[in-house]
């Protein structure tokens, strides 16, 4: 469904430097039983966030009040594994609007773009810079500028540009989704289907 528009986001960020975080960690399978899209944020990173009795695990970053914000800075190969879009719904529902990593899994990245969470791929060096800056000062503000395609550490001005395809960028800025586009192509699609 159409989602929030994304242009410029300024926020503090939550660091999660673990590598190869798969979507089974982001939202474990046993929480996929809903038939609606809301409420997945409660179980975001469930098994890292809570122990078996449901008590918050103190050492997990989402339970550490020092860190907050709409940007998640994640380790390499984020979002691998299962194609469950629920993983992105959970991130969105929790309040994240942007995920930064030096490497994303393909389907996860697509799912993000489809529901309006911006995946920003940075160089490994810039990811390290972000982790260091956030560790030194959890209130560090980060700006993600979609029109300019830049991500900037506001305190130091350290900045890097990121790639996004023009079509997806336009969609994100206007809160459009692919279905709107496809529905407008109905006649062409019908012609193609009939020829098969």
């Amino acid at each position, binding site marked *: *469904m159409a989602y929030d528009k994304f242009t410029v986001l300024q926020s503090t960020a939550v660091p999660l*430097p*673990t*590598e*190869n975080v*798969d979507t*089974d*960690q982001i939202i*474990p*399978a*046993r929480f*996929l*039983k*809903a*038939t*609606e*899209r809301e409420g997945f944020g409660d179980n975001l990173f469930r*098994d890292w966030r809570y122990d*078996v009795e449901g008590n918050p695990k103190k050492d997990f970053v989402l339970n550490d009040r020092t860190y907050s914000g709409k940007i998640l800075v994640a*380790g*390499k*190969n984020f979002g*691998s*594994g*299962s*194609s*469950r*879009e*629920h993983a*992105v719904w959970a991130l969105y529902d929790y309040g994240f609007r942007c995920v930064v990593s030096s*490497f994303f*899994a*393909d*389907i996860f990245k*697509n*799912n993000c773009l*489809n*529901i309006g969470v911006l995946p920003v791929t940075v160089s490994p060096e810039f990811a*390290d810079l972000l*982790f260091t800056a956030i560790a030194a000062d959890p209130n560090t503000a980060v700006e993600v500028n979609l029109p300019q395609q830049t991500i900037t550490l506001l305190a130091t001005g350290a900045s890097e540009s990121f790639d996004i*395809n*023009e*079509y*997806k960028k336009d969609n994100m800025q206007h809160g459009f*989704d*692919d*279905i709107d*586009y*496809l*529905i407008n*192509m*109905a006649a*062409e*699609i019908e012609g*193609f*289907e009939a020829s*098969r």
Partner: protein
Amino acid sequence: MEKNTLFDKIWDAHVIKSVPAGPDVFFIDKHFIHEVTSPVAFLNLELRGIGVKYPNRTIATPDHNVPTVDQDLTIKDKLSRMQVEKLRENCAKYGIELHDLGSAHHGIVHVIGPELGVTQPGMTIVCGDSHTSTHGAFGAIAFGIGTSEVEMVLATQCIMQSKAKKMRISVEGTLGKGVTSKDIILYIISKISAAGATGYFVEYAGSAIQSLSMEARMTICNMSIEMGARGGLIAPDETTFAYLKGKQYAPKGADWDKAVAHWKTLKTDDGAIFDKELVFEAADIEPMITYGTNPGMGIKVTGTIPSTQGMEGSNKTSYLKSLDYMGFVPGEAVKGKMVDYVFVGSCTNGRIEDIRAVAQFVKGHQKAENITAWIVPGSREVEKMAHEEGLVKILEDAGFELRQPGCSACLAMNDDKIPSGKYAVSTSNRNFEGRQGPGARTMLASPLTVAAVAITGRITDPREVF
């Protein structure tokens, strides 16, 4: 003449339009749906006030969260029941073919598609499930999509996707004794890592691949996603045609001949260029097992867990965190370690050949006392054959417990969970933390290795046992 890869040929034939500086509008021939990733897509269609455009191009089955006992009774778990009921409701409402619990072709979506002959060479196939790559074994472009895309396919039969880069992985030569297609794919992933093929669509080629049965090929394509690939495919050949011939949805009579003639053109032209090419020798591959929490963390069953030498920073921390979860330390051997559960099933290795292989190995033996052994057929059809061929008897005599078809302990959405801290050697495809239940420790291996572990109760090299 332009030289094209198999992937190019199928992809290009399905592009309705290329958006400038954007993705392709990509037509989907067949769409599979299941109960977990489809309800929100249907809900959104309703909110938009639109319907399903081509219902005969979608096929449904409930598999992910269904119980594997008492399937004839009402599902006890309320949320699972609601998802399955929603699927029934949506299929009835829009006229979508449903292979429901208990029906002759119920099963894991990636097992029943090929079994019914729905999956055919040259097709584009998607499903809200990453292991849709399985269908690539037939020379189809098949890959997993998210729920937003499920909605797009239902609404328009298209998705918007950018074409992936192309990789060819060739495996040449003859496989050794006790080495299966599962070992081939675990070996490849261990070599190139769980992210090594991200951004690529992989074609598997070479004499070792060509020599495999359709089911063995499916195992390989199935796990393409575990190295990050969008999907994997294998050029169709006589093995493919022989498998499809006579299947329910396969073309018949003159249509069959026409189809085969077309399918024979579906191969990579000599001299076509791939973005990346890798070649492996079959002789180098031995029975494999994973020791960590992503499928790239695999070694020979006889091997030792890599040391942390050369690792630093978050790479090292992540590695140690993974080993800590598994209860292992760097440098130790895995062979001989005690195991608690074995699981034979899933869309990777839950087909009849897998069950035959296990039955043949355990025939006349008893499972070890410390082992709980589950066999979950991938479909009703597989279950039926296992009964008819006497395999169920052999397995039950050996102390295995046969369950009804479904995804089961592959992702533990139903009651089939490995308890926290316990070790399971599984024929499935993912060893992520908690994948088989909170705290469960999963080691992935071939059906043969799993059979050997079941008998000895420990991590065992299948070549040494039987």
